[in-house]
């Protein structure tokens, strides 16, 4: 009993020594069970967000107003599916199967980013999502390129490259709309009004109310807090809004010399928790659509497996 305990202590010590030296933890390395659990939760949630995020944007592929916009949007949605794939693979390297993760998503046991529980109502929403939602996601993801788990960090390096392209195309959509006819500009402002606050909510609860943050920072999974990232996003985005002649939908936005950043108004945390708890405008339809395509695809997966099994059997014979 004693020797086992000693071994475990030694393992923890080695693990922490690696983190202290900023070395990556790799799939075959020993890791504390809580570290594994935390990462499975975070990576699968991230993967699910990419996958559910395909829906609000996929919603506009068939209606995109020009060929160029249509092709870019289709490519973007395809990129998101690809990100989901890397991330599921990164999570699988920690010993959870894709089926298990999908089951958790479909049954509500696993969460995904709440932002995708808002509806995409006009073409300008494609601009706002690329610019604000991908912009907010990048803040997190740039940090996660230095996360302590190797496969997650490497997936992030690749994802960040594509996300920054997504953000630029979103801002470009908004720039063109804002410089267009009054009706187009109004469409852009309306989209900004609807997506601004949910984008700020993407960084999660305030630091003092974020129970997992301290541990995640200790393990170098996260390297900055929710509030730090949110502040950086506001600092970066407000000048972008002003540059294209739109208005930030927050009367409390004000430059603060002392903190070298913008002060901004209070987020509606009731709305945040309402959506997190499953009562946002689209929580039910997003999951229902996901389950529907999964169930409708069951016979296709069965057919593919049955055919593969026959081929393998013939090879073996």
């Amino acid at each position, binding site marked *: 009993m004693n020797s086992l305990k000693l071994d475990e202590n030694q393992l923890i010590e080695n693990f922490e020594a690696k983190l202290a030296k900023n070395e990556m933890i790799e799939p075959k390395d020993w890791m504390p069970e809580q570290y594994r659990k935390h990462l499975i939760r975070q990576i699968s949630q991230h993967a699910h967000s990419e996958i559910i995020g395909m829906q609000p944007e996929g919603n506009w592929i068939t209606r995109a107003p020009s060929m160029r916009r249509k092709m870019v949007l289709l490519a973007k*949605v395809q990129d998101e599916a690809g990100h989901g794939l890397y991330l599921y693979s990164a999570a699988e390297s920690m010993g959870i199967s894709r089926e298990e993760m999908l089951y958790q998503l479909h049954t509500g046991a696993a969460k995904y980013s709440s932002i995708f529980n808002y509806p995409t109502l006009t073409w300008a929403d494609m601009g706002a999502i690329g610019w604000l939602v991908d912009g907010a996601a990048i803040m997190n993801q740039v940090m996660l390129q230095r996360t302590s788990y190797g496969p997650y960090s490497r997936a992030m390096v690749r994802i960040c490259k594509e996300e920054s392209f997504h953000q630029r195309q979103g801002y470009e959509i908004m720039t063109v709309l804002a410089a267009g006819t009054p009706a187009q500009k109004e469409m852009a402002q309306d989209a900004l009004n609807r997506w601004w606050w949910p984008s700020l909510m993407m960084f999660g609860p305030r630091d003092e109310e974020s129970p997992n943050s301290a541990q995640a920072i200790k393990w170098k999974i996260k390297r900055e807090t929710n509030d730090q990232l949110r502040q950086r996003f506001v600092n970066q985005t407000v000048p972008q809004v002003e540059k294209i002649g739109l208005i930030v939908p927050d009367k409390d936005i004000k430059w603060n010399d002392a903190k070298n950043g913008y002060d901004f108004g209070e987020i509606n945390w009731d709305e945040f928790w309402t959506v997190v708890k499953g009562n946002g405008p689209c929580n039910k339809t997003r999951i229902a659509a996901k389950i529907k395509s999964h169930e409708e695809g069951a016979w296709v997966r069965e057919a593919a497996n049955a055919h593969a099994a026959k081929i393998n059997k013939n090879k073996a014979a």
Partner: protein
Amino acid sequence: MSQNNSLFNYILKIADNQLILGHRLSEQSSKGPFLEEDIACSNIALDLIGAANSLYIYAASIQGENKTEDDLVFLRSERDYKNVLLVEQPNTDFAFLMLRQFLFDTYDFYFQQALLNSKDETLAAIAAKTLKESTYHLRHSGNWMIRLGDGTTESAMRLKNAMNQLWCFIDELFEQDETEIALVAQGIAVDSNAIKAQFDNHVASIMQNAGMDIPTNIFMQKGGKQGVHTEHLGFLLAEMQYVHRSFPGVKW
């Protein structure tokens, strides 16, 4: 009909097939049976729409009058679209949409291969790029035919149903009107009759591997190439065009 007009209409026929099929496939984005297949279908949809786009840009340049590819896509109505009926058929199940892909991919592979020899250099150049894509599209949908035909009783039954529904649109792929025949004579257009045997052979060989019979005694439907479509196309265009048409003349 002037030479330019004939060429313009011929390019539109090719482009409309690619666009409408790409549109149908893009409707499936995020609805695939599993993630890898979702990515594959989105990718193929993007190839098809991209190929259409190159062709529309070329057609617009022939049309002149400062027309663009978007004018051709968003401002033509049902009767102006000249795609074949096969590609506008709405998605039902995966067997149906993958068979629709396979039948078109087979046609398109031999079509693009023949178009490489077109005396029209732009068409030949676009075909060279498209053929690379058509090659893997055909491999992808052909593999699915075998998986579905050989997989389970249910998948074979679904594929058979799809065959019975889609086979009636095959002959139209090879139909030629007088202007097209004239372009064939000039070495510009593909002689569809000449690729029919290749189409038949490839479909027969894949379907044999899939354990599927090819339907016989099916009445063949036509009309798309004359702009006489099934009722489905109007809804597709309504959805595709409404934003563009709601804000006439603006930039996007």
